[in-house]
């Protein structure tokens, strides 16, 4: 019943939702949340391929997912720190208002 295609599709759906949220929502934190969802979708992809891949004993997929989680955590920390600093500077988290880098 559970076919790898389903997992892949779910992962794609979550990726798309994350992407949509990152693109659509105004708040910077929600963009970050969207990015986390995208990362998680990628993790799911990895685990799915590990499970249904040719060589699960090599634990490659698992390792990758673990490290990805670690990096995602670090990245979330730094990203949120940045958002807080930006908030202190611009007094807003509205991304549409933070366009001083416009060319």
């Amino acid at each position, binding site marked *: 019943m559970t076919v790898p295609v389903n997992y892949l599709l779910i992962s794609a759906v979550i990726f798309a939702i994350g*992407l949509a949220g*990152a*693109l*659509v929502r105004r708040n910077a934190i929600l*963009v970050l949340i969207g990015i986390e969802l995208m990362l998680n979708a990628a993790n799911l992809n990895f685990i799915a391929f590990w499970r249904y891949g040719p060589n699960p004993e090599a634990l490659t997929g698992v390792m990758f997912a673990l490290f990805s989680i670690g990096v995602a955590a670090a990245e979330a920390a730094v990203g949120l720190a940045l958002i807080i600093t930006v908030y202190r500077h611009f007094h807003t988290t509205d*991304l*549409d208002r*933070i*366009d*001083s*880098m*416009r*060319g």
Partner: protein
Amino acid sequence: MTWIAHNLWLVPLMPLLAAGLSAFAQRKHRLFAASVAISSISLSLLMSLIAFAEVLRFGNQNATKQVFNVGWFQVGSEWLKVGWVLDPLTAVMLVMVTVVCLLIFVYGVGYMARDDNFARFFCFLSLFAGAMLGLVIANSLLLFFICWEIVGLTSYLLIGFWYQKPSAAAAAKKAFITTRIGDLAFLLGMVWLYSQAGTLLFYNNGAGCLEQTALIKLMTHTTAFGMAASTGIALLIFCGAIGKSGQVPLHVWLPDAMEGPTPVSALIHAATMVAAGVFLIARVYPLMSGHAGLDLSPASAPALKVVTWIGAITAVFAASIAVAQDDIKRILAYSTVSQLGYMMLGLGVGGVAVGMFHLITHAFFKSLLFMGAGSVIHGCHEEHNIRRMGGLRKLMPITFATYAVGMLALCGFPLLFSGFWSKDAILHSASIWSESRVPFYLAAFGVLLTAFYMTRQVIYVFFGESHRFEKPAPPPHESPAVMTLPLIILAGFSMLLGLIGTPAWQWFSAFLNGQQVRFDLRGFAESGVLAVMLSSTILFLIGLGIGWLLYGKKPAARSAAPDAVEQFTPHIFNLLRNGWFVDAFYGATVVRFTTWFSVLCDWLDRWVFNGAVQLISSLTLGASWLSRSTDVFVVNRFFDQSCQEVALSGRLLSRVQGGRVQSYLRIIAIAFAGFVLFLIWGRHG
């Protein structure tokens, strides 16, 4: 070569220097100007006398001329030479011109004493004297022409001396233009002569244009109408003489030239400048007559025939007009024209000696008459009309006496007066002229008319009652000695000069030809001499008698009363008074044409040439405007436009950098989708 022949150029140089110095003088330096002029002309007189003595000396050795030529400038390999010649003709003219000039300069000191422009007067007079003397000594037709033109210029300056008077300015202009017409023909003749003979020097050791080789060449070369080149050239040169000497038809300027001061009229328009035309014909006589000599050849050249006829016609024409004139100087002016006609006639029928003799005598008595007229005018307080004068015989005795001498000399009172001998020589030559006797009859009639009009003038001016004066002015007075002394000297000359040309002792013609002369009473016995002398005396007496009858017996009571002849034949008198309407004719034709032509030229200049210039300038302006517009609108716009495009495109492209993170993300997502598509497609395809 003697010193004087070598340095003959000093003779005209003195007056020219005087003119130059006077030109820098201011109005108040009157004494300086007059003294410099008179001293220079005295020096010239001295040198002329030395030259005359020199010619007498070598004339006795049967050599006729001394020539000195210098090269003026070089054109290619040819040298243009000018020079001066010392021959009897030159010597005689030099003496005459310097004597008359000196006397008139002295006279002028008195006459112009009250004039403001005294210094300018003497400057111009000196310039004239220098140019006239240069003309006399010239050995080159070119140098002659240059001096001729300068003389014409000074005539213009002196006729228009009182330039504030419009009539004087107009008269000066008329004189200059009329003589110019003659000078144009003269110049053409000169150019033709140069092209044919290769030189303009008169005498040049056999190579001159008046010497045998050149003459033969000119005579044998025939041109249009079967005319020899020498005849054509001679006629063209004669045209110059017609203008300068006031022959018909270019005589119209001489009467008007009386607008100038009387010394000017006496010097220039009686004795010297107008005689320059006669002198020219005498100078180029070999060309006119066709052989290298100053005598007449039996077969008269065609050019000389033309000279004769024009001279004869002028003599009678002008004398007839003089009959009806009222201005004292105009009578004398027409008389001058008439006498110049006689001179030309003499040159034509009798040769150089005949014409020149009358020229010399005429110079003296005509200048005497003019100066006497000036004295009368001066004494009558600038009155010119003879009808308003009268009875001056008692009031101005010296003037009357000298004037009477001059008048008798002009009319040709027998034996005692020079005019008789010179005029008789002409009449005699005319009577034996092989071509026709008509000039003789015309000349004889002229003698009668001359006596008549001079008598009329003398009676009007000097005889009669002095109450004919209507001007409430102080009575006329005799002129000062500075004016009467030259009159007396000239009167003496007028009487004595005749002696050098009597048929018994033809010193003058012998002198001119470099021959020996003898006193021979048998000269009177030559054919026709006595008959002519007698007939001229009779004609003189008839003229005198008619004049006395008409004017002397019943002098007119008032000045406004009509003239006696006028009462007789009003129409002819009117015709004569208006100079046979020649002036009016010229005015209606030549002057009108010239005016029309100048209007045409002005129109041409204003509309056609100016229009062309404007067109070109507007084309240039248009071209420059076009290039400017191109630069501004096309080039600049192109450049500016492209810069703006770059800026615009930059601005447009920079909109991509919105500074919004999400738009960047969007682009990344699209790029990612595209990339995946590309990969998958690539693999599948």
